[in-house]
Every structure is written in structure tokens, then in C-alpha cells.
């Protein structure tokens, strides 16, 4: 994977409001996204609950319902693009 030194320190944050509960499908899409970007860490925070997006169980165990505000913090290569993609998964109306 191409990687430059300024990229690996990159940090991006997105705050989204879930249009629907964070069920298996979006949790799975997030885990796959994290799997494609192994050098990049995707952290989710909802209230007092936190999860690393690479773990589908931890994400589901947040029990985040529709209307929950979720902060996505991404560090590492391609942080901005990965953060956009993660936010897109969390706010998709379908799936």
C-alpha cells in the first residue's frame, strides 16, 4: 500500500447522526472498510460507548439507535477519504 509520512499522521473527524439503528449490515461494512485500510484506525464514539470499527461485535455492542450522535475519528493514511466513507456508511438510508 502506498504510504507517505505526512499521510500516516493524518487525522480526520466526522460527526454524524444515525438515521437508523447501527445493525449488522453497516457494522459489517465498517469492518470491511477497516480491513481494506489496515494502517488506518477508525474509532467510533457514541455517548459513553466506544468501538474500533474493525470489530463488528464491538460496533454492534454499542447498541446505537436511530438519532444517536456518533463521532468518527480516523488516524493514519487516507484519513480524510476513509472518514468520509465511514460517515457515508453510518448515514446511508438503506442497508
Amino acid at each position: 500500500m502506498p504510504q507517505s509520512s505526512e499521510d500516516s499522521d493524518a487525522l480526520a473527524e466526522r460527526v454524524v447522526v444515525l438515521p437508523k439503528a447501527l445493525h449488522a449490515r453497516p457494522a459489517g461494512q465498517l469492518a470491511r472498510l477497516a480491513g481494506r485500510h489496515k494502517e488506518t484506525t477508525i474509532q467510533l464514539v457514541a455517548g459513553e460507548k466506544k468501538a474500533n470499527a474493525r470489530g463488528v461485535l464491538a460496533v454492534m455492542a454499542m447498541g446505537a439507535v436511530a438519532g444517536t450522535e456518533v463521532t468518527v475519528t480516523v488516524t493514519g493514511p487516507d484519513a480524510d477519504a476513509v472518514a468520509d466513507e465511514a460517515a457515508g456508511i453510518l448515514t446511508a438510508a438503506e442497508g
Partner: protein
Amino acid sequence: MTSVAHRWAGQGVAPGAAVAGSWRADRPVPAGAVHIGPAEVEEAFAAVAADLDRVADRVRAQGREAAADIVAVGALIAADPDLVDSAKQAAGGDQPLPAVREAVESYATVLDLLPDDALRQRAADVRQVGRRVLERLAYPGGGRDAPADRFVLVAAELGPADLIEHLGGGLVGAVAVRGGANSHAAIVARSVGLPLVMGVDPEVLDLPDATDLLVDADAGAVVAEPSPAEVARTEVASAREVERRGRLAAERGLPHVTADDQPFGLYANVSSDVEVRLALDSGAIGSGLVRTELQFMEADRWPSEADHRRVLAPLLAEAAGRPVTVRLLDFANDKIPPFLTPPAGLPVLLANPSAVTAQVRAIVDLGRDVGLRIMVPMVSSPDQLAPVRAAVEAAAVSFGVPAPPVGAMVETIAAVREIEALCQVVDFVSIGSNDLTSEVLDLNRVDPRARTELAAHPRVLSLIGRVVEAAVAAGLPPLTVCGDAGSHPTTLPLLLGAGVRSVSVAVARIDETRWRLRRLDTEQCRALFTHALRLGGAGEVAELVDERIEVTMP
């Protein structure tokens, strides 16, 4: 091998028959001295994840998207780094297998405790992954893969994923000790045409794998080591059935128009997210009837808003983007929970405004992503609509969404008598053919004589015709018939003849209903209907339909 000739009775919950070697899905894993450590555990999880990914790909290649998604979640769980780490740590002790089992169980329990029904169901997926990992560890040499050849699945209890993962593989039938016709596994089995017998004696679990096992769901029987004659008979019948279903399913995706190019609507009656998934896979447009009372048959009080949300959330999430008609609680006839006394029904629901509000709020809030309509069951008078509409409007205001259409299920003679007035106060009507037929012919719904084809009785037909005319005259959208008449060979042409252009049927009937509708001619059905109204009884009408309508089935 010693002869184990045995015959057990059970409940056939998905029709058909099949014979093949048995394979126990949930053979207990020996807890004994298996020598394993963290490396073997990690390897086992990776292998299970790869297995499930392969199954998901195969199921997807067969066009079963929803089923593939269910299995793919299992693969992601098996690859979950937290779960794998915790199991690896557990494997360091003296009793690695029980320790790994406990580690998995603790993850399942976390999900079990969440206040969200869809997430709680994932706990079963975690346990299933754990079971596969343990089997792989306990049986060196690759775990217990299902036979590559044809087999009959045997288990104490079956989940829907147990069946889905073997679809398209060698699975030809299944047997379970626990469970009944309403279980998710039974729903899946019916929709994919897999013979399934439940409620069989636990003795069946003791059969060694690869015992010849005949599953005859039509007769409610399971036979170990059947005679060659029985085997031959079953194999012919089951090959024919597999081919028939394949040809019916091949028309998924073809235009929903009749032989004379009239568009029709094809919807499914559902009560769970699994049924929604299967219905959409089968090509239904959406649901014309979401039954909401079935989850509350043992309730000791009116369900709260939270109760309704728990039941509806997964179902409505699955139906996102589709038209969905949710029916309010229909506690009547054979569906009365312990806290109510017969005849219950709509008057009792309306006498409890907070019960109406609780359900309507859950539906309106969770139904934002679907093409939502709310339907009132067993309406007997137009004035019963006002309180429901008021509750719907209040809920819409409080959630800041537009108020969904509110309609009536016409399934009583009283409603038909006042149909013109009723059409003035609703946004749509649907017809419940089962209850209407029972009332017109004075039969109890659970009466074995209350058969679907009786909806062909001229007295029932004339009422249906009257409802269709009134709905058209009032400018309402095309009405839907929700009931078994919508999928029956005798009654379907008559409904079309009465002017019905939309039906909502059981998930297992979607393919054959589409097949029939695409071959019926509405003009011919119209003439048939007019003629049928002049006949004396359901039997005579059935003969007329037989004579005039010919739809060749595969």
C-alpha cells in the same frame, strides 16, 4: 452397520419429501483432552470465517442476496479481532475447549442484553460461529464439514442460518426435535421448498451420521433406513418438486403484467424480518400485510410502545424503500392473548386508546424509511376509523413526519354493508378474504371446513365485487386482497374478474402466484366472474373455473 429401522412422527412444517444420508448439525463437542493452544484457536476462527465467506459467495451467486448477507455477518463475526483475541487467551488454560466456549458465550451475552431485537438475534450468530470453531478444534482434520453429497440435516433446534448456509449445497431435507410452524427456520424452509419436519423424538439425534433418512413432511414422518420402495417413491417426487420450483422462480424479475398486459401488484404477508428478506428475494414488491399480533400471543397486558418497537424495528429496517402496509393488532378469533377474553377484536383495542397510541407511535416513527400505510383490522363501522386517524396524526406531528395513509381491512359483512360510507373516511381499503369467507358461510376460522376455495362461493364473490366497485367509485387506490384466496388457483382468476389487481400472499406462494397472474387474461376472468355470480355454490364455481381457465403449471 447395524440396522436401526425406526419411524418417528412429527409435524411437517414445510411440505415435500426427501431421502439422503443424515448429518447432525449440532453434535455435542467432546470436552475431553484436546491438545490445543492459541495458535490452533486463531487458525480455527480464520478457517470458519473463510468457510462462511465461501458459503456467502455461493449463495450470492445463486441470486439469494439477503440470505448471503445473513451468512456474511457470520464470517465477519468469526474474523472479529476482539472475539478471536479473547478466545486465544482462554485457550491458554487446562481446559481449552470449555474456556473458548465461555469466551464466545460472553460476547453472545453482551448482545443478548441489548434492548434491540435485531442485535439480540445476532447473539445466536455468535454462538453458531463458536460452535463451528469448537467443532474444528475438537475434530482435527478440518472440523465437521457438511457432506459434499446430498444430506438430511438433523438437529435439536434449527436457526434460519443453519438452513441458509447449506442451500444450493447438498441439503435436501431437515429434521428438528424442537420448533414449530412459526419458527424462522420453518419460514425459510417453506420459502425455499425444503421439506422440514419438527417435533420429532430426540432419539433421532442419536443416529450415526450417514444413516439413510427419509423425511416426509407431507405425512409428518421421519424414517431411518427406509425400504428401497419408499426411497424410490420419494426420490421421484422430490426431483419433480425441485424442478417445478426452479421453473417458477425463473420468472422472478419478469414484468408484473397479466396475459393481456394489465399491470398487477404482488405483495407478501409477513410477520418478521426474515420473511421480508425472503419475500423480496422472491420478487415481491413489498408487504401488503404486516401482522403485528403474532409476537404477543402470550402477552399478559397490552404491548407498550417499546414492545412494538422491538418487534417492528428489524422488520421495517429490512423493508427500507419498499411499500409496507402495517396492520394494527388483530387480537380476534383464534388469536386472543391470555389478558383478553373472546371475542376481543377491534372494539376492545379502540376501548384502550393508550394501546392504539403506543402501537401507532412505534409504526410511524420506525416506518420513515418505507412507503408506510397503516391498516385497521376487522372494521365493522366507518366511525371506527376516526380514533385511529387521530392517533396517527398526533404521532406524525410529534415525530415531525407526514401522516401515512390510514385504511381499513374489509373482512366483515358489516363493513361491506357500509362500504360506500367507509370509503369516504379511509385512504385505502384491503380485503381480508379468509375472515370474510368464514363469516359469510358461517364457519369458524379454525373449522377444518374453512378452506380457501370457499371464497369462490357466489355470496362471497358478490361482496368482494361490491367492495372493489365502491373503492373505484370513491377514487381510492387499487385495493389489495390479503388472504389465501389471492394465491389459490380457483379464487385468483375470480378476484381478477372482480377487478382486483393486487394481492398479498404468503411468502412461499409468491413465485406460483406470479406465474398464474402472468398467464391470466383479465377480460376472460371478468366474464368468468359474471357467470360465477349466478351459480349456486362454491363447488359449482370451482367446476366452472376448471372448465374455463387453463393455466399450465410447471
